[in-house]
């Protein structure tokens, strides 16, 4: 067997060599005059374009990032080993591209689209430049379809629509990545392609996410683009653009895509390192002047196309890490102003056991009700107002003795709502579960349930409803509506369950 294979290979090779036409083409070359810290200054290459891919003698690629009178500045996309003064650099005439296509799904790749999961080469037939202009005004449609996260607190109060950009912001260890991963898990069977871009993350964290996703069968519709902390700053810089290029392939074919950038503060830091080495003038906090444009051009590429252009969408969930809850720092304010809303996570809430630790007051979705199903809109009703009233009155819980009946009820209701919004990791809720839970809370059917038993009550109640009111559950899931009669039915069902 092995013998035949070797012979076959030999004959193929011989054939190739015999029919090899040597074309000696003119090539444009330059010489390295300075190299260091992942940046090379190359003399010559006078016709190189900004953003063009060049190849060094050692086979390492680079991107032209600054054009000067006689020299160009090139950022290396690989090891600088073997690049010395006088090394030759060749132009390719192409802008930096990544392979895109269905073949990428289920794979873990680096910022250049090369596989890093050990599952062999990816045979993509199409390539796409990593930098692409965002869809124009004419091609776009307003956000109107929900992209459910499966997290009750988010879907009920800060709904995310397809084509929206919702920032997830918070300190370290507040569950930012968990929200993103939960959202990916919730897209199972919904014909959404998910792309997770890890920028400057620990490789162990990325491995853990890959594990979680494969365990829940989410890798079947996901791509992971990883530029971990050990990789060069230029790779970390291009990773989100490469991920977006992969997403655009699906969007222009009419598919819905969810893309998570984890996280953009590290992306800004990588870009700062690169810019300083390229001798671009530093601005505030030593970030270069175009750090705002860096993120705005990235996030503008997330959009919802109208039917004439395929009707696809890219929903972006950028993540930003703050220091000590400071949302008014430079990068956080920039990204907040670009995105269509933010989910603010607080460590104080996280450690007091409220997980997901969403701060209801500071979080917002600027698309709002347009991106909610009718059923959810009706069920969530005045949840935010109830919670706001509860927070205002919360201090009085300490003097519980001298409270009038209405205040006491308000406090009890509020504390039960907060309990209801808690949700364990990797357990996204379906639409009917959310709607029924919210109905139960809104109609004060849980006031007599002890606070500690709320979660058990909710679980058992949902199981009962799914069993006994199957038609109703199906109707909510399929038609996504909630009529007054349906509410009556739910209430009577819950009462039935309680009286058992």
């Amino acid at each position: 067997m092995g013998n035949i294979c070797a012979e076959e290979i030999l004959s193929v090779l011989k054939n190739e060599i015999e029919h090899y036409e040597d074309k000696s083409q003119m090539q444009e070359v330059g010489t390295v005059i300075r190299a260091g810290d992942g940046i090379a200054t190359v003399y010559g290459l006078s016709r190189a374009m900004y953003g063009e891919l060049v190849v060094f003698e050692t086979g390492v690629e680079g991107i032209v990032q600054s054009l000067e009178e006689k020299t160009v500045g090139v950022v290396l996309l690989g090891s600088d080993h073997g690049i010395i003064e006088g090394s030759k650099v060749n132009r390719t005439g192409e802008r930096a591209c990544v392979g895109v296509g269905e073949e990428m799904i289920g794979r873990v790749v680096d910022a250049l689209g090369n596989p890093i999961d050990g599952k062999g080469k990816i045979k993509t037939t199409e390539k796409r430049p990593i930098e692409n202009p965002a869809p124009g005004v004419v091609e776009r449609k307003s956000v109107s379809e929900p992209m459910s996260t499966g997290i009750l607190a988010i879907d009920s109060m800060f709904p995310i629509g397809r084509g929206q950009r919702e920032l997830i912001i918070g300190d370290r260890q507040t569950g930012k990545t968990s929200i993103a991963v939960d959202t990916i898990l919730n897209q199972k069977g919904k014909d959404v392609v998910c792309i997770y871009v890890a920028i400057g993350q620990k490789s162990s964290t990325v491995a853990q996410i890959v594990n979680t996703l494969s365990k829940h069968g989410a890798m079947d519709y996901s791509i992971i683009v990883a530029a971990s902390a050990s990789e060069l700053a230029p790779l970390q810089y291009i990773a989100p653009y490469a991920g977006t290029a992969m997403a655009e392939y699906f969007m222009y074919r009419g598919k819905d895509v969810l893309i998570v950038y984890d996280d953009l503060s590290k992306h800004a830091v990588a870009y700062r390192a690169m810019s300083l080495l390229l001798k671009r003038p530093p601005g505030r906090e030593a970030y270069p002047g175009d750090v705002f444009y860096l993120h705005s051009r990235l996030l503008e590429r997330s959009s919802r196309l109208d039917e004439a252009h395929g009707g696809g969408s890219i929903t972006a969930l950028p993540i930003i890490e703050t220091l000590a809850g400071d949302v008014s720092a430079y990068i956080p304010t920039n990204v907040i102003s670009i995105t269509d809303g933010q989910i603010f996570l607080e460590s104080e809430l996280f450690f007091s056991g409220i997980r997901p630790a969403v701060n209801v007051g500071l979080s917002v979705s600027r698309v709002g009700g347009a991106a909610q199903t009718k059923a959810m809109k009706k069920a969530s009703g005045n949840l935010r107002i109830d919670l706001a009233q509860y927070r205002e009155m919360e201090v009085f819980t300490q003097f519980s003795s001298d409270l009038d009946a209405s205040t006491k009820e308000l406090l009890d209701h509020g504390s039960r709502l907060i309990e209801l919004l808690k949700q364990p990791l990797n357990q996204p809720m379906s639409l009917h579960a959310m709607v029924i839970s919210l109905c139960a809370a809104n109609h004060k059917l849980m006031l007599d349930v002890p606070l500690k038993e709320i979660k058990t009550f909710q679980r058992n109640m949902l199981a009962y409803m799914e069993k006994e009111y199957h038609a109703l559950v199906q109707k909510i899931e399929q038609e996504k509506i909630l009529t007054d009669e349906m509410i009556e039915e739910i209430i009577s069902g819950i009462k039935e369950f309680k009286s058992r």
Partner: protein
Amino acid sequence: MNKQADSYGRALFEIGIKKRIIEESRKLYSKNPALKEALCNPSVTKEEKHRVIDAIFSPKIRNFLKVLCDNGSMDQFEEIYRSYEGCCLESENILTAKLIYVTEPQTEQLEAMKQTLALKYDKDSVKLDMKQDASLIGGFLLRVGDEEYDYSVKGRLAQLYKKLAWR
């Protein structure tokens, strides 16, 4: 290569000193390490450097060298000369090209090569910089400015490798 040396070289060309004088000064400078050391050393005072220049160099170029010393750019003299040479060749409409070969080409071959180059780049004549490099295995490599014409066996092998190893 750097901008400063380039400006000096252009200035040197534009003040119109005879080429012979500049070439002689450069030879003098590059062949005497002690002179180089004295003129480049920042601890030697300007007055002393000026005295040395007055004593050694031809009167026409003295002022230029003094300016270089005063600005602490004397160590770039070689590069300035190269840039000056470039200006001269440009003004005479001469093209410089680099030829890297394994076996030295015959005179007729060289002439033919020069003619094609002169025609292609619209220049009066061509000055070839010859260099031997056995690592090319065979053939030659012609470099004009940023452009490179690869007719070497090494280059062809590299191309073949690329074709065969392509996924």
